[in-house]
């Protein structure tokens, strides 16, 4: 694999991850639904839940970092710094998707031991959109994991040349 192919592949991974984070943010922010059951009004927005707010913030940070890293990756001085920051951002993305999935699971299936009823029956549009946003966030997280492994591999390529 030539250097050009390697850099192109890394760039491609970063662009797709950027697209996934932007998609996750947009879908989550535009998800809201309201339903009236008897005399209770359920209004479901993403900002009601701290986990979803953290998800949006983390995806926004990751998306902004992706843009910065895309600009910085053309300069090989920063490659090690970019690799270390990639690990931090991968950690952030994984914790945010995990938190959002935990709360979304409670919303979908409830928790009978704690007396928490599922809400997806009342606000199905909200639940569908949140599911879409979580899928996009999951794709972004997996792509970042692949990216850090790939960056480590391509940063170590000169090292491998020295081995017998």
């Amino acid at each position: 694999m030539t250097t050009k192919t390697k850099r192109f592949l890394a760039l491609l991974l970063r662009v797709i991850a950027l697209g996934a984070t932007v998609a996750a943010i947009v879908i989550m922010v535009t998800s809201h639904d309201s339903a009236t059951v008897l005399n209770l009004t359920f209004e479901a927005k993403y900002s009601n839940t701290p986990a979803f707010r953290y998800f949006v913030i983390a995806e926004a940070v990751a998306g902004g970092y992706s843009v910065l890293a895309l600009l910085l990756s053309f300069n090989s001085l920063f490659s090690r710094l970019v690799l270390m920051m990639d690990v931090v951002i991968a950690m952030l993305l994984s914790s945010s998707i995990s938190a959002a999935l935990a709360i979304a699971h409670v919303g979908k299936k409830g928790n009978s031991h704690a007396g928490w009823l599922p809400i997806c029956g009342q606000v199905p549009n909200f639940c569908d959109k949140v599911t879409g946003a979580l899928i996009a966030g999951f794709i972004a997280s997996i792509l970042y994991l692949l990216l850090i492994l790939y960056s480590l591999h391509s940063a170590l390529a000169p090292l491998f040349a020295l081995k017998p």
Partner: protein
Amino acid sequence: MALRNGGKTEGEHESVPFSKPKGRWLLLTVRIVAFLATASATIVMALNKETKTLVVATIGSTPITLTLTAKFQHTPAFVFFVIANANASFHNLLMILVEICGNKLDYKGLRLVLVAVFDMMAVVLASAGDGAATFMAELGKRGNSHARWNKICDKFDSYCDRGGWALIASYIGLSLLTLISALSMIRLMKPKPANQPTTIP
């Protein structure tokens, strides 16, 4: 120390940072502390259980009691937290053993690379476990008025306390794991070339 032509592996180990005794002991100490942190987080959360008996009604003179139990298995987020921290502590233990006993084991110099890769994956896994458990604990502590989910920490306060301690230990383990990952990558990244002419002291 005199002749280094035959021992290419030893030459690399000499010039790589964190392979001199002081650097190695630093890395080993941080790994041991991280292992203790993640192991204690796993154990505290796995043994987290509280039972409360409430009197629901009184018929005549006999009270009808209802026994409620809070266990960590009731919440999938905490189950994932226990599993992720157990994996992270197992990873730490394995890496400690590799550091202590595995100096002779090497395959084309891939040992340091594999250690760095596994460290990165352990960081991502531990952070996922922490994130899920944090927000589930926040939900249990404050409830969610919009979804009509009541808080449970006022009834099961020692369950919540122990969960909080497990979470704090896990965060300490996570930050130490990040440090370890950075150190492993630094160790990989800055070797001097192996065929540098060496002087005999």
